[in-house]
C-alpha cells in the first residue's frame, strides 16, 4: 500500500529534474567549449574560458554592482516594509484599505511598470522632475548619468518589491501573541522600548526568511535594467545577469556565457549560504 507514495512524489520530481537538471549539466559541458557563431558545437578547450573570465573586469565590475544594488535595495525594502507593516498593523483608520493599496505594486508586471517608470524618469517630458522642482530639490538627469541611473533602478525596485516585505512582515505581526505586550505594558515600557525588546526579537525568524527570499530574487536583477537603462550610460548599471545576456544572446558566445553563468551561480550560492548563516545567527535567537 505504501508503494503508492511514489505516485505522489515522482511526477513532480521527474518533471523538475528533466527541465532543470539536464540544462544545468549541459551548461557545465558547454562551459568547456568555444561554442560561438562561427564554430557552433561542443569542442573541448579545457579551462580557457575560465582564465578569460578571471581577466574580464567587466564581469567582476557587474558582480560588485549587483552586490551593491541587491544589498542596497533589499535593506531599503526591509526597513520601509517593516515601517509600513507597523503603521497599518493596528490603531489606524481604514487599515484594510491601506493594506490592499500597499500590496498592489508587487502584483504588477515588473517589465511593464519599468516601461512606465522610464516615461516617469524622462528628463523633459516626465512628471518626476516637475514634482522635484516644485518641492525645491530641482530636476535631475535621471537616466543619463551613472549615479542617477543606479538610483533610478533602485527606486523602481523599492517601489515594486517593498510590498513583498510588507506582506511577510505584516503576516508575522498579525500572528504575534498578545501576552508579551501585556507584560511590557505592566513593566512600563514605552513604544520604542517595546519594539526593540518585544516585537523585533519575535520577528527574527520571519525577517530572516523575507530578507533571504528578496536577496535571492534581487540577485537575478536584469529586466528592470534592460528596460530602464539597457545597462547604461556606458556599463554603469549593468548587472551580472544582463552582462551574461549580452555575451550569450547578443554576441552569441554560448561557450563563454555558460562559463560566466556557472561562476555567477556558484558565487550566488556561496554568498547566499553565508548570508543565510549570518542572518540566522544575528536575528533568530531563542530568547526566553
Amino acid at each position, binding site marked *: *500500500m505504501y508503494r*503508492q*507514495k511514489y*505516485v*505522489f*512524489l515522482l*511526477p*513532480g*520530481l521527474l*518533471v*523538475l529534474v528533466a*527541465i*532543470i537538471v*539536464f*540544462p*544545468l549539466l*549541459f551548461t557545465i559541458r*558547454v562551459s568547456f567549449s568555444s561554442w560561438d557563431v562561427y564554430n557552433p558545437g561542443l569542442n573541448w578547450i579545457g579551462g580557457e574560458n575560465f582564465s578569460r573570465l578571471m581577466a574580464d573586469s567587466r564581469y567582476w565590475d557587474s558582480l560588485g554592482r549587483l552586490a551593491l544594488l541587491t544589498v542596497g535595495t533589499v535593506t531599503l525594502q526591509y526597513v*520601509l516594509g517593516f515601517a*509600513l507593516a507597523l*503603521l497599518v498593523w493596528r490603531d*489606524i483608520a481604514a487599515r*484594510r484599505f491601506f*493594506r490592499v*493599496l*500597499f*500590496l*498592489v*505594486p*508587487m*502584483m*504588477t*508586471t515588473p*517589465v*511593464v511598470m519599468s*516601461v*512606465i517608470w522610464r*516615461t516617469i524618469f524622462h528628463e523633459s*517630458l516626465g*512628471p518626476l522632475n*516637475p514634482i522635484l522642482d516644485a518641492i525645491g530639490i530641482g530636476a535631475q538627469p535621471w537616466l543619463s548619468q551613472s549615479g542617477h541611473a543606479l538610483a533610478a533602478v533602485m527606486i523602481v525596485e523599492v*517601489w515594486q518589491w517593498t510590498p513583498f516585505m510588507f*506582506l511577510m512582515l505584516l*503576516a*508575522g505581526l*498579525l500572528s504575534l501573541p498578545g501576552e508579551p505586550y501585556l507584560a511590557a505594558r505592566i513593566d512600563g515600557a514605552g513604544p520604542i522600548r517595546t519594539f526593540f525588546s518585544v516585537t523585533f526579537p519575535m520577528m527574527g525568524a*520571519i525577517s530572516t526568511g523575507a530578507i533571504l527570499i528578496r536577496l*535571492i*530574487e534581487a540577485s*537575478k536583477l*536584469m*529586466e528592470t535594467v534592460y528596460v530602464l537603462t539597457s545597462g547604461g550610460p556606458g556599463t554603469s548599471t549593468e548587472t551580472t545577469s544582463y552582462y*551574461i545576456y549580452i555575451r*550569450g*544572446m547578443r554576441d552569441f558566445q*554560448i561557450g563563454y556565457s*555558460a562559463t560566466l*553563468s556557472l561562476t*555567477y551561480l556558484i558565487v550566488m550560492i556561496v554568498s*547566499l549560504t553565508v548570508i543565510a548563516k549570518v542572518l540566522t545567527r544575528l536575528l533568530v535567537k531563542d530568547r526566553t
Partner: protein
Amino acid sequence: MNRTTYLALKYLAVLVWSAFVVLPFLWMLTTSFKTANGVTGGATWVPWLQYEPSMAGWKSLFGGPGGINIVRPYINSVVVTLSASALSLALGTLAAYGLSRFTFRAGPIRNGDITFFFISQRIMPPIVLAIPFFLMLKTLGLLDTLPGLILVYVALLLPIAVWVMVDFFNSVPRGLDEMAWMDGCTPIITFFRVILPNAVPGLVVAGMFCIIFGWNDFFFAFTLTFTKTQLLPVSIVALNSSVTPWWALSAAAMVSVAPLAVLAFVVERFLSRGGLAGAVR
C-alpha cells in the same frame, strides 16, 4: 511627543507612501488618454483642463494606428499562465502531500533534502537556464510555441507550488488521513476524497502565487519566442523605444496590470483572517 503629533506623523507617513504607490498608476491612466501633442506638452495630469483627451491609445490596442494589437498576446498570456499554473499546482500538490506524509529515502537523501531541492530551484537565475532552454526547445521543435512556453513555466512555478503546499500539509493534522486509512482507503483515494477537498485554502494561495509569477514573467517569454507566440509583456516592451507612443504604451500597461492588481484584495483577505501566516513562512 504628545499623542496628536504622533498620530499626525503616522497618517502623514501613510499618505506619503500611498502617493508613491498611486502616482505611477495615475500617470499611466492619464497618459493613456493623451495624443502626441498631449505628451510633448509636458507632464500634465488633468484632462480637458491641461490637454485634450483622446481614445487613440485605447483604440490602438485593438489594431488602431500607432500602437500594437495586443488581443492575441493577451490570449497567449492567459493560456500560458493558466495552463502552467494548473499543471504546477497539480504536480506540486501531489509531491507536497507525498513529502509531508511519507518517508522517502535514497542513500543520505531524506524528505527535507528533496523539499529543499524543489524550493532551491528559485535560486537559479533565469539567464543561466536561458540558452539551454533555447537549445532544448529548438531540439524538441517547441521554440516559439505555446506548449514550449508552458513547459518552461512549469519549471518556474513548480517550486512555488511545492513550497506553499508542503507548508500547508504540514500544518494539517494527520488524524484525517489515518482515519481514512483505517476505513480501508488507499493513500491515493484518501488524497482525492479526503485531503484535497480540505486543502482549498492552501490551493488558493499557491495558485495565486503561480499566477502572479507566471503572468509577470518576461525573460523566458522574451528569449524563447519570436513573433508567432508573443506574450503580453513582450509585446508591450517591444513598444519601448526613443519614439515610444506613450499613450498606446500606457493603455496597454493598464490592461496588463489591472487583472492582477485585483488580487491584492484576495491577499489582504487572507492576511486579515490569519490565513497567510502559515503559507508565507
